[in-house]
């Protein structure tokens, strides 16, 4: 199957190793993966700030880059959710709406692609650490990668299911298992005080419960949390879930 790899702009620029781990994972399970070199961003930073009307060019670019693939996979729940909910052909190019629909239906966040499409059951990875999972809101409440604590419904978690396949991982139990980290796109600077405080509280929960490595499916949340960790000089390492799923320590 032909998979188009979508690496969000900030991952491309700041966390190339996350892109590499994602690529390796997909290849390991037999996907024929390409990375369209002309990709930039899903448009979410503008849209969530109230400027969805400025995202037409990003949308056009996205459609051109990814329409030909069977699946589009990305190591970011937030960007995937944005595409799923908001990708449309620009008004003057309605002939491309079919392509946009194809992309909206065929775009997957990495962990759900592994569990639901590739039906991965064995990872042959090893990571002997206490791992704290941050459930990013867009992945969890938006894409339903895990059951949220608000709903009276059966619990499940796709990222945890995968982490449990990694040998010697010990998953940390948190006091608040799915509270938002406070990143929130431009919120992180527009509402700096609350955003930072939310980040501090999340990290506190991990410190109290003995997390050695903090992981998650969204590098944006992790970038914010890592910022707090490093400022406070705490002994917690931050890694994207793709890096743990490919670890052989």
């Amino acid at each position, binding site marked *: 199957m032909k998979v188009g790899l979508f690496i969000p702009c900030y991952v491309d620029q700041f966390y190339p190793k996350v892109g590499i781990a994602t690529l390796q994972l997909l290849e390991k399970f037999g996907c024929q993966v390409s990375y369209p*070199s002309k990709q930039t961003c899903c448009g979410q930073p503008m849209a969530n700030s*109230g400027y969805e009307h400025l995202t037409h060019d990003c949308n056009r670019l996205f459609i051109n880059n990814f329409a030909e693939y069977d699946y589009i996979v990305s190591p970011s729940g937030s960007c995937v959710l944005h595409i799923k909910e908001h990708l449309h052909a620009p008004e003057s190019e309605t002939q491309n709406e079919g392509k946009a629909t194809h992309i909206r239906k065929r775009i997957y966040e990495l962990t759900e692609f592994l569990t639901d499409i590739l039906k991965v059951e064995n990872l042959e990875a090893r990571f002997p650490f206490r791992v704290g999972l941050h459930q990013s809101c867009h992945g969890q409440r938006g894409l339903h990668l895990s059951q949220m604590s608000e709903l009276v419904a059966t619990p499940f978690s796709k990222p945890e299911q995968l982490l449990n396949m990694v040998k010697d991982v010990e998953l940390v139990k948190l006091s608040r298992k799915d509270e938002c980290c406070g990143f929130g796109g431009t919120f992180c600077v527009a509402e700096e005080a*609350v955003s930072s405080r939310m980040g501090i509280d999340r990290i506190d929960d991990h410190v109290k419960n003995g997390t050695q490595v903090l992981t998650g499916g969204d590098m944006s949340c992790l970038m914010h949390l890592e910022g707090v960790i490093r400022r406070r000089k705490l002994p917690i390492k931050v890694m994207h879930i793709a890096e743990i799923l490919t670890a052989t320590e």
Partner: protein
Amino acid sequence: MTINHATAAEKFNKDFDRTTWHDETLWWVRQKRDRAAFSIPEWEKLRDTASQIKHNVLSNLDTYLVEFEKNAQKNGITVHWAADAHEHNEIILSILKKQGVTQIVKSKSMLTEECHLNPYLAENGVEVVDTDLGERIVQLADEPPSHIVLPCIHWKKEEIGVLFHKHLGTPEGCADPTLLTHAARENLREKFLTRRVAITGVNFAVAETGEFVVCTNEGNADMGAHLADVHIACMGIEKIIPQRVHLGVFLRLLARSATGQPITTYSSHFAKPRAGQEMHIVLVDNGRTTQLGREEFRNSLKCIRCGACMNTCPVYRRSGGHSYHNAVAGPIGSILAPNLDMTKNADLPFASTLCGSCSNVCPVKINIHEQLYEWRQVLTKSGHSPTAKTLGMKAMAAVLSNPSVYRLSGKMGRLALANVPFVVNNSLNPWYKQREMPEPPKESFGEWYKKNRG
């Protein structure tokens, strides 16, 4: 001038320990709600049903209101219609004038907060005593409520002790909740016995029967209404439900969502005035029909004011109700307020991370976080966004729309860190106040891919 949410929130966060306390107090309420909800296996079905009933109400609001009016009148209730807050206040004042009354008691009405009734009546020489304990506390402190269900949740009991010592003469240093409540009760008793007019809010008004239901825990609304010669109930027009049986859905949801109780201590049905009593009901629009006409925001009118979205909101818990500068705070306040005044409330839809927790605790399933997103679009398009932000966003869109410009600015940006989309247009980058930025790698993923797989 109103202080915007971010500024007020920054001030709130200056006191780190108090913020912790506020967050934990409300989180405790959220956990109580969880326990109550999880004790009911059909909880999600109940939410669905409630949402559907409200859907029907909003689609047929005109007929239900007229039906309610007719039945209420049949029961001997006088029905008034108020187009806006000002009309509402005038109607109340005219009833008081007719009675020759200058002192009244009031309980449990966020609508009168929305309409700023207290200051209006004060200007017109009427003294209002709020009898709900929490409302009484904020009234003595000369503050608006900070929460629609827990009006003084931002007050610690020691502080209430000081307040009561000053106003009610409780012993200095007394912070015992039982003693303080007792003091408030004694002080209020005299008011209940002497005030001839009582105002209450309305939780549900039943079209089929013309009755209305007031849900409280303290019974002060009942005390006021039963002792007074005149009972005035004020309600937003969206409070209508079609039939009595529907209460079976809403009463199960309301208290569980609000405080985690199975039901409020009192769910009082007021159907008709007792002999010799006058009963009035004021039906208030105040922007509700405008909101009804805004399709993407219509569902916000389903709200039953349980406060669950506030208790779960990580931003509300860490910024306090007053930072929302609106009678209704929190997530629901942020989608209701711009309807009333876009200029004044343009900041509120941005006071959220769009985490979506609110929409999923909401007992009537309002898509709150999606409406926050939609309000952002509406506010921006209608020119309620700062020029600097617009310029920054345009610049960002230009970079992200052009792959080669993006690659180039990425190269420079990784060093300068100026082009991270999230920190665009902030010359004094607030990110650094309490966080580090990631260390820039030597090559981007795109560059690595070209070398290794290209």
